[in-house]
């Protein structure tokens, strides 16, 4: 009787196999998903890294261009160039005794040139890359868990 009851509730063999197969496929799917996610994140991190590197080269290039343009401006406004331009425009050097002097209230002569602000409190240099571009998934995971614990389950203590 007991033997008969067990047999009555036993799953059909094909059902058991399908169940096992499903479980196996589910595991593979989860593994594939995690792998895919990891690859995707890694690819994005690599792209960001390359982009950052390219940005660095571009920045260097722009800085060189800025310097070159400053020198070019210096050449275009050099004493010789300005004098040539003035003479072409018909200007002539003024004789010493041709000046007329007037008092301009509030004008105290040419001020000292200031090309930068005066000394003040310095700020510490900070990195330019965000942590998202440098930390691994594990580091991100641990940091998130740690942060979760510190805030007592997402709520501030």
């Amino acid at each position, binding site marked *: 009787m007991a033997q008969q009851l067990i047999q009555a509730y036993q799953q059909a063999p094909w059902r058991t196999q399908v169940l096992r197969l499903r479980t196996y496929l589910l595991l593979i799917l989860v593994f594939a998903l995690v792998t895919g996610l990891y690859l995707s994140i890694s690819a994005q991190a690599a792209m*960001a890294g390359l982009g950052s590197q390219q940005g660095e080269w571009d920045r260097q290039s722009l800085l060189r261009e800025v*310097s070159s343009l*400053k*020198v070019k401006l210096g050449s275009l406004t*050099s004493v*010789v160039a300005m004098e040539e331009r003035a003479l072409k425009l018909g200007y002539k050097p003024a004789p010493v005794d041709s000046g007329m002097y007037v008092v301009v209230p509030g004008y105290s002569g040419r001020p000292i*040139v200031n090309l930068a602000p005066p000394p003040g409190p310095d700020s510490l240099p900070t990195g330019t890359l965000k942590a998202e571009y440098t930390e691994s998934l594990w580091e991100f995971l641990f940091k998130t868990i740690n942060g979760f614990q510190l805030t007592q389950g997402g709520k501030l203590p």
Partner: protein
Amino acid sequence: MNINQNSRFFSMGIAFSLIGALIFGQMISIQNRSDVSEMDTYYRENNDTITMKIIPERGSIYDRNGKLLAGSREVYEVGIDLKTIHEDTWDKEIQAVAREVKAITQWNTDSLLKVTIADKKNYIYVRLADGIDQVQVDALVKRKKDLANEDQPYLRSLVLVPHLQRSYPEGSLAANPLGYVTFLDSANPRGVNGVEGRYDIYLAGTATSILLPRSPYDITSVPNLPTGSSLILTLDREIQSAVEKIIDKAVAKTGSLSGTAIVMDPRTGEILAMVSTPRIDPNEYWQRVVPELLLKKIPWNRAISQLYEPGSIFKPITMALAIEAGAVTRNTVYNDLGFFDAPGKRIANWAYAAYGKQNMVGCLEHSINTCLAWISYQLGDKKFYEGIKAFGVGQLSYVDLDGEDYYPVRQPTDENWTKLSLATNAFGQGVAVTPIQMISALSAIANDGKIMAPHILRAIIDKGRQYNNPPQVVNQPISAKTANEVSNMLAEAIAGEAKIIKIDGYRIAGKTGTAEIPMPTGGYYADKTNASFVGWGPVDDPRFIISVWLEQPGGSQPFGSIVAAPVFQEIFETCVQLTNLPPDAIRKQLLGSTPK
């Protein structure tokens, strides 16, 4: 599922497990092999990272009004990557690169032709040219494309590396005080002479080598190194340019060996202009310094590096010391007989002239050597030598420029000093100074007895902040009263000295000098002189002290009053005009000031 099926599954499971275990075991084995470990270390060290030397941009140099005097511009280094050259076409590629680079850049590339295939083992890169501008680079790139289109890709190994190079947009303007940078040594450029040399450590910044990972996963940010500090100088490029023209003209007109001039603000010690000949365009230092200066033993900047006997422009110092010590007053009378018998030698005046009874203004006006020799004995050697030391004679002025020279004054305690030395030193013979030391000493008379530190740095810009360089008093060798007295005496003297200086509206003080030139073997040349003039104005509130020195002028009248004084006048008039300084009367009227 029957027993057969189960056993088959079981067997396959064991087989796959064994295969998996074998693979895993082999992986462990490979990982632990010593040669694999060494190889891994080798590639990690050589390929995982690249070493990058970051040379920060060299700081810029500006004049006092913020005009750029020295900056940096983008240029290219042209090289050849030996790894990429095919061995089959080695000769063709090497010859093509050498020919094309030489044709476009004008650089000599003959040494490239000697590079052999065997060199590939030792070298991977050969530098061919540097400092190549964008136009030439564009021409090279175009040529490379053209050859590739013609199925002759012989320039594929060409490498173009951009970098910054020192550039001077004003050319040779202010070259003497600026100095230059050895930019052709792009890996280690160095400032030489002048400001570039003196402030090289600040301008250059700190070069840093960093390891950059090649893997994009390990990317790290390149440290944002600050550029070298920038400098704001006290120079005024308008005044500098004008003075350079005036000096060049004077040298050509008088046939002098060289000309030197300094314009300084005696109240602050700020150098507004510093000129000497020749001037080498710092952009071309690599072509011109050796043949034009080094081989001829000519200093880069005579104003700080060339010693000469000042002659009569030294007399105001002796006079000031004597008045300060009470040895003479402006009304003391000296009876000039045309000679003065110093111990061991009779001293005579220029052209053996005798001026009879003269007060101290007359002594300065006629520049009477015998009078000054007599004064030195009234003063005494101790006070004289202590006094000229306080004036900075025979010492460095410590102007903030690289390359300053000095020659110590013989002291009474020295073996080769005699009583005659005192008499000759009193009128500027037997002492050697540079123009910067002389103008610095005389600035005390113009500035109430105080010597301000002569300097060219007005401010330094470091990490985005501007730090100003305040004027500093170096010494006060005489009182303000004595200084003003001597200044007025000199103003009267040059007004009387055949009216050599006549600047309408401005009262000027100054002294001419016509100095003999000592021979290396002793004694003085009979036919060679140095003509000079140092003056300042306006006397009641001096804004400019100007030193002019023409070395060995030609002509029949190579005197300071004839050749140097007019140069001083022209420079002073230019300074007045460029700085909008009104004539004395108008200035006093506008400011409501009274004369000293």
